[in-house]
């Protein structure tokens, strides 16, 4: 069995979730190679070399992959797929974008967002916003899989893989990158933080999210939000937690002024400890919270910041 894993990165940093995808690959078993496709991405290659359990790092460093456009990357991965039984990526922005193209070009089904490996062809994945868990067998000879990182532990970074430079420069010529508007933040990544504090519609406006910042500073937490808070323009889209936003599973998740709709729960209910702060005792969030406070968040937050 040979497995190729697409490394999620931004040309500078290897996204830590890739280490969890490697552990999903180990559960399948076989010779594991990584692919770094980007431009001026030597720093990522250095990090990729150290990922444990990996024998080779394939590097496609070319302007065609600078922004990892799906049209171009999918052609590259499809070409490389000839030598592998399994192609994997983390279910993050890039993987979700290009992997189904690879599956279609290879004429196989994709198994999305797996949270468990039963055997080399049978996988576990959430459906219906996590309200049901499906066990699915793939009947294709080649497997194309995306991995929900929160379900797997990260492998170590004490490896020493060989680097193989590729000469491919597949450019479909049908799309181009215009610009990025990325949110700058000093805080840990939502997906990687041990503590997440999220605000919902109950926060009333974007300014009030400052009330979460003091607490986040003290706990080293990332700040998240419900869809309602993002839709209302309180905070940017990359903070949304849920079925269609980010999936998080920190040690501690604090939901502030969030009712607990199933679509929000889908993104955080695997957290170890959940705290809910909500003035409505009937809010569904209390059904999943380990600790709840039924109170006005504008009273609770300043006091909590003081007492931490």
């Amino acid at each position, binding site marked *: 069995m040979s497995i190729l894993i697409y490394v999620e990165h931004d040309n500078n940093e290897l996204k830590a979730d890739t280490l969890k995808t490697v552990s999903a690959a180990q559960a399948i078993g076989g010779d594991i190679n990584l692919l770094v496709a980007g431009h001026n991405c030597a720093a990522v290659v250095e990090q990729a070399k150290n990922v444990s359990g990996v024998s080779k790092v394939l590097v496609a460093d070319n302007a065609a992959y600078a*922004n990892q456009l*799906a*049209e171009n990357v*999918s052609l590259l991965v499809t070409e490389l797929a000839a030598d592998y039984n399994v192609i994997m990526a983390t279910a993050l*922005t890039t993987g*979700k*974008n*290009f*992997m*189904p*193209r690879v*599956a*279609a070009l290879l004429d*196989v*089904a*994709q*198994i*999305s*967002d797996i949270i468990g490996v039963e055997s080399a062809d049978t996988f576990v994945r*959430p*459906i219906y916003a*996590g*309200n*049901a*868990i*499906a*066990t*699915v067998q*793939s*009947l294709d000879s080649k497997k194309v899989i995306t991995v929900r990182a929160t379900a797997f532990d990260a492998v170590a970074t004490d490896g020493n893989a060989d680097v193989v430079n590729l000469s491919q420069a597949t450019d*479909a010529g*049908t*799309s*181009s990158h*215009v*610009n*990025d*508007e*990325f949110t700058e933040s000093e805080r840990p990544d939502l997906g990687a933080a041990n*503590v997440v504090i999220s605000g919902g519609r109950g926060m009333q406006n974007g300014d009030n999210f400052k009330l979460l910042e003091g607490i986040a500073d003290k706990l080293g937490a990332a700040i998240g939000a419900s*869809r309602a808070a993002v*839709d209302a323009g309180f905070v940017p*889209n*990359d903070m949304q937690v849920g079925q*269609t936003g980010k999936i998080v599973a920190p*040690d*501690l998740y604090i939901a502030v002024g969030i009712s607990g709709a199933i679509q929000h729960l889908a993104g955080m209910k695997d957290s*170890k*400890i959940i*705290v809910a702060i909500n003035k409505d*005792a009937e809010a569904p969030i209390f*059904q*999943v*919270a380990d*600790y*709840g406070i039924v109170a006005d968040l504008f009273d*609770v937050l300043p*006091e909590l910041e003081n*007492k*931490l």
Partner: protein
Amino acid sequence: MKVLVPIKRVIDYNVKVRVKADNSDVDLANVKMAINPFCEIAVEEAVRLKEAGAATEIIAISIGDKSCQEQLRTALALGADRAIQINTDEKLDSLHVAKLLQKVVEEEQPQLVILGKQSIDSDNNQTGQMLAALTGLPQGTFASEVKIDGDKVNVTREVDGGLQTVALNLPAIVTTDLRLNEPRYASLPNIMKAKRKPLDVKEASEFGLDLTPRTTLLKVTPPAERQAGIVVETVDELVEKLKNEAKVIA
């Protein structure tokens, strides 16, 4: 410019689904069904493009048994001009859905295909990208803004770090995210009018495709339930519990 909008009939997003006692699948008997929320956003976007003069004709299409005609009528009431049902009783893989759509794209030659980024039942997030690959077209997935610009379309995408804008040569494939627009409600006169709009039915088996399943659903189980915890009275008590009982803060 012709716009094709594939839509899916799914469980209503307010309904919490239950797993069948024999763990064979979820139980959809007597459950309220609706147009997938992301597909509804796709229809709305097409209608706005038409209202803005950028689109001339909107074709809604759904693949499924006869019951999905209900959602096609909804799309027609929202502003689609005509509809196509591809009839099948099979539960198709996304790959097969994409292959059927590819045939329709070849026949209808739309400049833009707008799909939902995922359906809230299978949560696969695949069909749009697969259709793009099969047709060789560029894609703008997870769109929060779509701007037609001559023979290109600029799509702003919701990505992990924030927003990314790409320029795609037309024809192109777009998949919608939640913030692309807020769908309108169909008015009663439009619901009446929709009943008279054309709805073609084709058989999935007529397309000459091999639709043999590529996956088998072995079982479906309910997720591990979280136990509801306790309500604390004071912030002091909360901090004490987090430190000493849960041990998640220092």
